[in-house]
């Protein structure tokens, strides 16, 4: 499997640990499905932990944007945690780095909601 997603609850924040490749196909679809499921359950505080993401392409970036928009339109917040250099560079190149609230420490990210 190219992607692995694990959801856990820390207080009222849903943390999604993402590992593997967020690319067109299985990876981006799995992330999309998880985000939709969480919005469907009316989750308002979602933290995507991307620390173990080895690869992301433009489709994966698109799913991050889509998730952000969907969660925000639902009155919630979507934040990012543990961006590696590759993901960070991509978000900076595409001018999306300042759109997301990005954190390097989980505890601080949780407190920021």
């Amino acid at each position, binding site marked *: 499997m190219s992607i692995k997603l694990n959801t856990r609850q820390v207080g009222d924040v849903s943390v999604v640990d993402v590992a593997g490749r967020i690319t*067109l*196909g299985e990876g981006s679809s799995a992330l999309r499905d998880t985000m939709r499921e969480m919005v469907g359950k009316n989750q308002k505080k979602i933290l995507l932990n991307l620390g173990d993401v080895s690869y992301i392409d*433009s489709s994966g*970036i*698109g*799913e991050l944007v*889509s998730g952000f928009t969907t969660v925000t339109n639902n009155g919630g917040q979507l934040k990012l945690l543990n961006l590696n250099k590759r993901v960070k560079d991509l978000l900076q*190149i*595409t001018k*999306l780095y300042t759109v997301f609230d990005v954190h390097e420490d989980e505890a601080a990210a949780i407190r920021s909601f």
Partner: protein
Amino acid sequence: MRENKQQLPETVERFLDSTLDSVDSAEELAVGMAQRAGFGEDDLTRIGMAVRESVVNAVVHGNRYSAHKKVRFSVGHNSHKFTVCIADEGEGFDFESLPDPLAPENIMCTSGRGIFLIRSFMDEFQMRHLDMGGTEVTLVKYLVSK
């Protein structure tokens, strides 16, 4: 400065099925050759991503996953540059009118960043309509700084 550790020119051409598996194959082939040509890790990452985005465009937007259409994929290098050509058999598109993904009105779009990323990662990027139909893109990365 990138050093060309492999002086011998190398060229490979493949006709790929219009599937996502072909995207992986093309990326692997290109990165392997780029590594032999002497590119460092950062450039290998950029080349891999540019090739992936290009082949995805050919498979998804050009050939629309058609089992009857192939993606012509060639990758090669000589002493000074690394070149990838990807051609689809699609209807073609107006690549002069692509929206700017960095424009404020497009920042939150969920697609449309592929070609922008290719241009960002490669030294040269060209697109052309093929006389027989379809679109061909050419990606170039120089082995020695120009």
